[in-house]
């Protein structure tokens, strides 16, 4: 639990600490599809299907946990 909170705080600090502005003309690499932090919606659903119906700890982030199989 303490490790999780520490990691979460560290991630938050890294994120908030990086508020230096990256100008528009220096974002070419960020625009590469390889850099997308989210999958395309159909693939995201495939992954969600794999985990949300097999792990009791799935869901709750970005979409509602639950629905479908009651074991979720």
């Amino acid at each position, binding site marked *: 639990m303490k490790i999780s909170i520490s990691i979460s705080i560290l991630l938050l600090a890294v994120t908030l600490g990086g508020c230096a502005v990256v100008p528009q003309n220096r974002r070419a690499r960020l625009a590469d599809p390889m850099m997308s*932090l989210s999958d395309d919606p159909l693939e995201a659903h495939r992954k969600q299907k794999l985990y949300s119906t097999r792990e009791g700890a799935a869901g709750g982030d970005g979409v*509602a946990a639950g629905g479908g199989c*009651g074991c979720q």
Partner: protein
Amino acid sequence: MIDPARPRLALALLAAVLLARTAAAEDPAAPAPAPRAPLFTDADILAKPPPLFRLDSVAVRYTRFDQSGTGYQSRAGKPGGPGSEEMRVDQPQLEVVIKQGAHLTHRVWIPVDVVTAASPDAIDVVSTSSRRNEAASVDWTATYAKDHTTASIRNGHHEEENYRSWNTGLALTQAFAEDNTVVSAGMNVVLDWFDRYLLSGTNDGHNARSSLNFNAGLTQLLSPTTIAHVDYGYTQQEGQLSNGWNIVPTPQGAFQLEKLPGERGRHAFVGRIAQHLPWNGAVHGSYRFYVDTFGIVAHTFEVELHQRLAAFARIRFNYRYHTQTGADFFRTSIALGDPGFATADSDLAPLHAHTIGFKGTFDFPVKLARTLHADLAVERYFRSNDLRVSVYSCGLGLLF
């Protein structure tokens, strides 16, 4: 010698012509002179206005899940022992995205599940009515985007043999600091309505549950090659949370239905980071912490390695590790008639799970559209309490 009458005649003719022109100009009944045809039209200058509705993309995906393993919640085994969880799911999906005007986008999504060999985990042990079960959803999302703000509304309906579900949601995003920072927030409501069964498999009317979910996220550009995202979500569920047919074995070789609490609060924290690599690749890392009122605490780590092979081709390797404690009331055996909460569901057990995957992606420019997208993915999921899933997926899409 000049005839003195000639100048007078010329002056008289000139005066007559001028008077006639003046009279014609002042006569309101006189027909207006025809306007000159323009040399070019508005369309020549402004170009043709775009149509109100414009097809933005069409995508299809087909996925197969092949599952094997055992769990104590299944009746498809020896009395008191774990039963089979063998199952196969075929999942086609269709997505169409349409632009309406300059700011509005509609997304229509239709996923279908065809579940075969579901009997080990369903009522088929009693009645073989649903050895093959089809399920389908229709989901519509409308997004309004202007300047640095987007607002979305989402509605969906899910239908299958003994189960119906409705969902609706709202989401907002706001970009700051020249789009370096994006803050998002959203909420979703899901209402499930399904058949209730007795231990004998007899239908006993209907039951329901609801899920209310809130999310807040922050995406931040950290450098010209680094991007990070943090997210928190809370979900509150109420109603019958069990699926209605999972069992808990008793020492006497009998069994009774699982019994779960009537509500569940679930917290999930997620952090993700992506770093572009100098050799035209990228690495992604993520960590997720989860805790709920059932007593489950989970940690999930995931790493992805992306590599571009050509302008039109790239590959991805991914590994995910998930570990969770069990629900407080998880047990593989219960005294007959025990009224307390109990589940033998292997998904609520303490477990470790690994996923290893590979994906190849191809994006070709074509005449018909801006891009033709194709991808192929293979994944293997396996976990400590005897469950294995092989996943095969391929996608195809046109981006206009």
